[in-house]
Structures are given as structure tokens and as C-alpha cells.
């Protein structure tokens, strides 16, 4: 394999890893504050991408044709509306089940994901077909031998990085972040200290869902196509990434996201080389199998939760 091809693979898996990491950060945030898994997260991402697309079409109809303005408005509308959706889900569906067994919350959010998926399929005009996503980023590219660096990919990668750094700063450097961390550590004590528990939970869900919407837009801009089914697989991958990294830990989630995409790339490259005749489609089988084996080695992820067993 040439160096150029290798760097191409590395770059592509970085790109995918960034999207996975953005989904995983959401999972890990929700788990941190409420100890629950919100499985509709992947579908929130999908709805975000569709909202972006609808906004784009709306802007086209209004006659706004500057790509930069379109991009900014799309991002803004998609992120804000998904943040709102996330907060609504938390308020009316997740918080009421706080005292129920965790299995119920898991099932509820899974079903919510189905509702979102079906709603887009049925109510978005021709929602069951894949939709072309507009190319809004400059498509210039620089070639180094067999390695092609596309400008839009670089911009997306940087945007993802910026989003993750922003969340990191929000959590670690602001008063709100301090409150989120306090609730994650001990909800009851945080309440005693005068932190508005419900507000913080809703805010966390809003941040996480906004991140998902960004991830959805990135996904759309990268592949130039979206369909109503992308949420399920991205959701499961994001969840795997968060779990592999260690639930409740943001760095773990980011690490897990890149690890998962690296696994997929390794699977796609080495499987056909090792076993002639196997197709690269086995890469997901490989990645998930490694995740299962990994769980045997580190049952609570790379960066383990700090907790003590109380009887």
C-alpha cells in the first residue's frame, strides 16, 4: 500500500470519527446527568439533517443564494430546533420516567427513535427516498500523489473540532458547566447547593441534541445524501463509541468515536488482504465483534466510571 492511499484512509477515518465522536458526546452527556441512555439520539441527528435540508430549500425559494449565508442559517436553524426538541424530549418523556427501571427508559427512547424515523419517512415529502444534500462547501482539492485532500472535508473536520472544543470549554470553564458537572456527580447534593436540577438536565439535553444536529449536517455535507434510516446505525455506533470510551466521560466518548472509525477502516483494509474473497462490507461485522471482545477486557470502557458499589 502506498503512503498516499494510507493517508487517504487515515483522513477518511478521521472524518468519520469526528461525526461518531459528536454523537458519542451526546450519549455521554445524557448519561452523566441522568444515568440514562437516550437511544433516540441517532434519530434526532437525522431529523436535524432533514431540518437543515428543509431550511436550505426554503432559502432557495426565498432567493437567498449565497452559500455562506445558506450554510450559516441552516446550521443555526437545525442546531437550535434540535436543541429545543432535545429539551422537550427530556422534559416530557425522559424526566417522568426517572424512577422507573432503566430498561423502560431505554425502550421508551428506542420507540421514540422509531416515531421520529417513521414521521420523517411519512410526512417529509417523499421521505422514504434518499435525498440529495446540497454541496455548499468549496470543492477544491489538492492532490499529493494518490492522496487527495478536499477542502470541504478539511472545513468539516475543523468545524467538528471547534464544536467539541466549545463543549469542552463550556463544561470545564463556565459556571453552567460547573453546574452540569455537579449534577452529574451527585444530583441530590447539587440540588441542596441550589442548582436548578431540571434546568440543568434540560440544558444538557439541548446541548447534546444540538451537537447531534451539527453531526447530522456534517454527515449530509460529507456524503451529499441523507435518508431517514441514517439515524439508527449512527446512533448505535455513537452509543458503542461512548461505551467503549467509558460512559459519562467526554474524552472517553471522543476517543471511542475515533477508535470505532479506525476499527472500521482497519477492517475494510485488512480483511480482504487476510482472507481473499471477503468483501469490505464485513468492516461493520469486524468493528462490532471487536467492540464485544473489548467489553470482556474492559467491562466499563477505556476510562472507567468512578463509582463504588453500595449494598
Amino acid at each position, binding site marked *: 500500500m502506498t503512503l498516499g492511499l494510507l493517508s487517504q484512509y487515515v483522513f477518511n477515518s478521521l472524518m468519520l470519527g469526528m461525526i461518531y465522536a459528536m454523537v458519542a458526546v451526546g450519549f455521554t452527556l445524557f448519561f452523566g446527568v441522568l444515568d440514562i441512555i437516550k437511544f433516540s439520539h441517532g434519530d434526532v441527528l437525522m431529523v436535524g439533517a432533514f431540518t437543515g435540508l428543509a431550511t436550505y430549500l426554503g432559502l432557495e425559494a426565498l432567493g437567498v443564494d449565497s452559500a455562506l449565508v445558506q450554510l450559516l442559517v441552516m446550521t443555526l436553524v437545525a442546531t437550535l430546533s434540535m436543541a429545543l426538541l432535545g429539551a422537550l424530549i427530556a422534559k416530557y418523556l425522559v424526566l417522568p420516567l426517572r424512577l422507573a427501571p432503566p430498561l423502560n427508559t431505554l425502550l421508551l427512547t428506542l420507540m421514540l427513535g422509531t416515531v421520529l424515523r417513521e414521521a420523517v419517512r411519512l410526512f417529509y415529502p417523499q421521505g422514504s427516498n434518499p435525498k440529495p444534500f446540497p454541496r455548499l462547501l468549496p470543492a477544491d482539492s489538492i492532490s499529493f500523489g494518490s492522496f487527495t485532500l478536499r477542502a470541504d472535508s478539511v472545513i468539516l473536520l475543523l468545524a467538528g473540532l471547534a464544536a467539541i472544543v466549545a463543549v469542552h470549554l463550556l463544561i470545564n470553564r463556565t459556571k453552567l458547566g460547573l453546574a452540569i458537572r455537579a449534577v452529574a456527580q451527585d444530583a441530590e447534593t447539587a440540588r441542596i447547593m441550589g442548582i436548578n436540577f431540571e434546568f440543568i438536565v434540560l440544558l444538557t439535553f439541548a446541548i447534546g441534541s444540538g451537537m447531534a444536529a451539527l453531526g447530522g449536517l456534517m454527515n449530509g455535507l460529507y456524503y451529499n445524501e441523507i435518508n431517514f434510516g441514517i439515524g439508527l446505525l449512527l446512533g448505535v455506533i455513537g452509543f*458503542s463509541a461512548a461505551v467503549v470510551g467509558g460512559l459519562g466521560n467526554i474524552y472517553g466518548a471522543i476517543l471511542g468515536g475515533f477508535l470505532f472509525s479506525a476499527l472500521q477502516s482497519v477492517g475494510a483494509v485488512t480483511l480482504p488482504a487476510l482472507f481473499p474473497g471477503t468483501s469490505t462490507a464485513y468492516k461493520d461485522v469486524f468493528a462490532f465483534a471487536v467492540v464485544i471482545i473489548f*467489553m470482556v477486557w474492559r467491562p466499563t470502557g477505556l476510562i472507567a466510571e468512578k463509582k463504588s458499589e453500595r449494598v
Partner: protein
Amino acid sequence: MAGVTVFAVLFLHAESQEEVMGLTLGAAAALLLLARFGWNALAAVSFAGHSRTGQAAVLIGVLIIAAVFYDQHFPLLMLASVLLYIVVCLGLNLQFGYAGVLNFAGAAFFGVGCYTAAVLTSHTSLPHLAVVLIGGLMAAGIGSLLILPVLRTHGHYAALVTIAFSILFRVFLEVNDTLGGPQGMKVQGMEILGWKLNDSLAFGEIEISFYANYVVLALVMAAVAFMLVRRLERSWIGLNLDAVRLDETACAAFGIDVARWKITAFTLGNFLTGLAGSVYAMMTGFVAPNSFTFGDSLILVSIVILGGLGNPWGLSVAAAIVLMLPEKLQFIQEYRLLLYAALVILILLFRPGGLMPRQVRSYLPGWKP
């Protein structure tokens, strides 16, 4: 019970959509009325008091339904599917209703059974009853690969293991050409001691749909599985499983081997699932990866939770509702998944124990809580 049978016959018989809707609403109203007057509590008490009669009545009821539709394929197919799904859900119930082992790969283990049947019937000449048995054993065997990760992990981490397996399995089937890829495989019909189950029986003028054979077979399987699960639940094994679910630490302190009981429940549950899968494959004559998606596993899980975790009767009722309602409500065809998911959300919000919550175990005969 007679009323329920008549209702089921009417329901399966109803052709027009208005009739179906009317019957559904009627049943809901009747149940509400019963609950209003506290009659369902009375019924539950009498049911508990005469469990043998009750079970016999259910068996007879199913046979009556089958007899009414002796020459129609579709209702009998539905009936047999419901019975097989009951077997699957009983297996899942053992796993997370009693032992508390999460399993989000029910459809994958069902698929293992189906594909085992497909491969064995088309490439070997093993007797088909043995094939069914091997289908169950294969599912249990492949499940045992997951035992170590399942035992080592807890809660959400354990959920991930089975979810990952369920997706892995589906993708594997889709890209594997020897197993037919996305097109799937054909499966031969079942044959027991030279008697082909796919041939219609004919007595003189009367021709009986071949699905009737499968209904009888599935009924036997469901009854045996039901009996097994009920006996297990009531025995010391069931007590151990409950203890494992409720508190692992306390359990270990009292000398109960947590790992042992988790493995028992997980393997036995997968075995039941695989058995039902191989019979299902032979009945429908066709398997394809699309029937074993993560979504299908979710439907299985939701049947168990809707019925009331740990309640075999509840999950039987839930299986019938979940499978038959969408088939019969064709006019909402497009919207059925949407409505169904919304319904599950509502039930989880307002009746988290399921339709029929599990009763407290009666430790002494005649003991009232």
C-alpha cells in the same frame, strides 16, 4: 374464556376495516368496563384458583379458532406465528424477566434458528425434528459466545453487547454469499416420520389448510415451553433467578452462584428462541436477513415489557395483540409502525408495569398479600 375465543374468531374473520376497528374499540371498551366494576380482579382470582381449567380452556380455545378457519391460509399462519412468537418471548422472559440478563438480540437468535433450518434442510437429509433441535442448540451455542461479555458487564454496557451482536448478525447475513446474501434462502417444509406438514390434509370433501399442521405443532411447542417456564418460575430455580435479578451482591452473599444462574437463563432462553426460529423458517419456507433486524429484536422486547415483565400470561396476550393488530389494521398500514411505537411510549409512561403486571409470588398456598 369462551368470550375471548369468540372475539378472536370474529377478529380474524373480520374482513372490512370498519369491522376491525369496531371490534378493537369494542374490546377496549369491554375491558375498561370490566376494570370499572372490578370484575377483572375477580376473574384474576378465579383464574388463579382454577389454573388447570384455565390452561385447558386456552388450549381448547386455540384449537377452536384453528378449527373455524380450517381451510383458510392466512388466519392459520397468523395463529401459528403468534404461538411461535410466544415461545420466543417466553425465552426472553426467562432472560430478563427472571434472571435480569438483558438481551436485545432476540431476533438474531431467532435468525440463527431459521438459518440453521435453511442450511440443514437443503444440504443434509437429517430428520426434521432433529433439525429443529439442532436449531435450538445452535442458537444456544452461538449465544454462549456472548456469555463472557454478558457476565462481565452490567446495565447499559451489557445492553451494548447484545445490541452490537444483533447488528453484527444482520450485516453478516447480508454480505455473506453462501447464506444467500440479502436475497435469503429457501427452506423446505417440515416432515415428521414421512408425514409432510406442507401437504394439505383432505378428508373426503373437506380440505384442511396445511398451516393447520403447523398450528398444532406450534401449540404443542408453546404449551410445553409455557409449562416449562411456569414450573421453573415456581421452583427453587425461579427463586434463585429472581434473587439474581433483584440483588446480585446480596445473592452472592447468600451463596447463590450468580454466574451459573445467568448462564442457565441466557442459554435456555436462546435455546427456546432458536427452536421457534427453525420451525418458523420451515413454516414460511423462506428466510432473509431483513426479518432479523434490530427493530425486530425491539418488537420482541416490547412484547415482553408490554405484557408485564415476568408474566407468561401477559406476554402471550401481548404477542397476540402486537402481531395481529397491525396485520388486521391494513388501512393504517403506512402509519402502523408510527402508531405502534407511540402506543408503547404511552403505555410506558402511564402503565410502566405492562398490561398485566407480574403478581407477587405466593409463598404459601392460599396466602393473600
